[in-house]
């Protein structure tokens, strides 16, 4: 399934049909202390399988709101959001928890590893909440991110880059259709950023859909497509046209 990257879409297919993520007039409003704030305003776009999309925008532009909804951690107040063909609005909170475990692999800026579990156990934790634990698979996942030799270490014994790689291994473990990376290199130095970037490239090559929020133009440049947000509005997303590879 390699080399899907540069293929253009079949003109007869509508984008919405083969999209893993589809937003139609999605808005998210927060109300509190009397006033209401529209963090995301009438967003309509879709992301197809195998795509690598970068979401950019300054602080307060609605990036986090968008990511939370894409990660099934939050739901729109208006419009429809479909992930892998399923409408989030129709799901109960418990179904949503289940759905999230199935569909989304999270990569966090702050890694969020449970401090008292080893690298291996942290990966297995995702298995545990998804279905059942399988140490072999978890080890394989760690090997894949080059962390096999540190499986028994606690997060506090790992460097930032290593922690992030464990986090990626955890995101991959249940084979989710979507990898959601929120500033994956935000807390890393140059060397580690390079390692993580290469890892993501590798994952993309093998067909993973990656949605990545980033500030870093260098990272954004790795993606095939950019969705830029400003003041809650999506203003830059080439839809309909062929998906252009930005890789040089």
């Amino acid at each position, binding site marked *: 399934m390699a080399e899907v990257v540069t293929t253009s879409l079949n003109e007869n297919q509508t984008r919405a049909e083969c999209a893993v993520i589809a937003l139609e007039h999605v808005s998210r409003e927060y109300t509190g202390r009397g006033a209401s704030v529209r963090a995301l305003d009438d967003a309509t776009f879709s992301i197809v399988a195998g795509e690598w999309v970068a979401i950019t925008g300054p602080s307060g532009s609605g990036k*986090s709101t968008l990511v*939370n909804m894409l*990660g099934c*951690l*939050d739901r729109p107040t208006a419009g429809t959001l479909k992930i892998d063909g399923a409408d989030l609005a129709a799901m109960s*909170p*418990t179904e949503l*928890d*289940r759905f*999230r*475990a*199935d569909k989304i692999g*999270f990569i*966090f*800026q*702050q890694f*969020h590893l*449970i*401090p*008292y*579990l080893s690298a*291996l*156990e942290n990966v*297995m*934790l*995702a*298995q*545990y*909440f*998804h279905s059942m*634990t399988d*140490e072999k698979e978890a080890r394989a996942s760690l090997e894949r991110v080059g962390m096999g030799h540190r499986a028994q270490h606690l997060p506090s014994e790992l460097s930032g880059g290593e922690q992030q790689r464990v986090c990626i291994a*955890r995101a991959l473990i249940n084979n989710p259709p979507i990898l959601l990376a*929120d500033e994956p290199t935000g807390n890393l130095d140059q060397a580690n950023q390079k390692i993580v970037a290469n890892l993501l490239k590798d994952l993309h090559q093998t067909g993973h859909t990656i949605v990545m929020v980033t500030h870093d133009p260098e990272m954004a440049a790795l993606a095939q497509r950019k969705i830029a947000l400003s003041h809650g509005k999506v203003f830059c997303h080439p839809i309909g046209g062929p998906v252009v590879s930005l890789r040089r």
Partner: protein
Amino acid sequence: MKLTLGSIIRRSLIHRRSRSLSALTAMTVSAGVATALLTLYASLDTKLHKEFRSFGANIVVTAPANTPNLAEQVKKAAGPEALTAPFAYAVATTDRGTPVVVAGVDFPAVRAIDSTWQADAWPTAPNAALVGQKAANFIADERTLALTFAGQKQTFASAGHLRTGGDEDSRIYISQADFAGWTHASPTVVEVQIPGGAPQVEAALGRLRAQLPGLEVEPVRQLVEGESRIVDKTHALMFGAVLLIALTVGVSVLATLSASVLERRRDFALMKALGGTQLQMMALFLLETVLLASAGVATGWLLGSAAAWAISETNFHTATLPRPQVLPLVLLLNLAIAAMAALLPARALSTLEPASLLKGE
């Protein structure tokens, strides 16, 4: 290697050692206090009733003169737990010619039942007498105490004076054997002391009246009524105290547990993001709480029983043995407190917004 709910909890408890310890301490204190108070509470009535026994007899049986085997009959009817003391009375004259009441008693029995009598020395030798402090004023020679009854003169040796502040101060007490040999009269009054409260006294009254028809059996009314009232009141007071303290300890557990949840909001948020359901989160948290509560009960029961023993020993001078019966109640109480304390944070968990937490707030 497997990752289970149990191992997650175990690792989590060990990792946050100080926090787990403080939660455990809170649980131990609550279980300990509950155990101590409940143990004391359970034996309070018995202990207080025992203290009231120093007031003396709570039933008095009066018989016509020359009732055969009165003391034995009463003793049998009153039951093995009761104390009885027979009294035989006669009016004799002293060496100064003053009439005085002489009583024939069983000294050890009287001593047991009327523990507040203050005697210089209790007579043991034959023909020894215990002389009331007022009666002593009407006797010329106490060393050879000559008393005359119906023309029969008998000499006794005074063993010492008796002080009670009551009618006894005006009497002279001699042993039953000496009395019978001298006056040929048998006991007419038997003082009975029934251990326990009003129901036990009522039951004994019924038994005595049924088995000894023709005898006058009367309770010492003010004693029985007053005793029940004071015991009940102390009981109620104790109950109030137990509730109050349980409430205080409950808040302490609440504070500790809710802090433990707040501290780990991020962990819970992450688990939610990884697909952990509401139910699993709750189970994780509740199980952890139950584990702590049970451990707290185990140590708390031991400490509480020791405390109850110490309190009993200092206050009532009798030991209170640990009561395994309170264990289920303490466990239930502790679990209830823990569940209540866990409910609030658990509710907070259900409304948890993993999104904002994972962003680092």
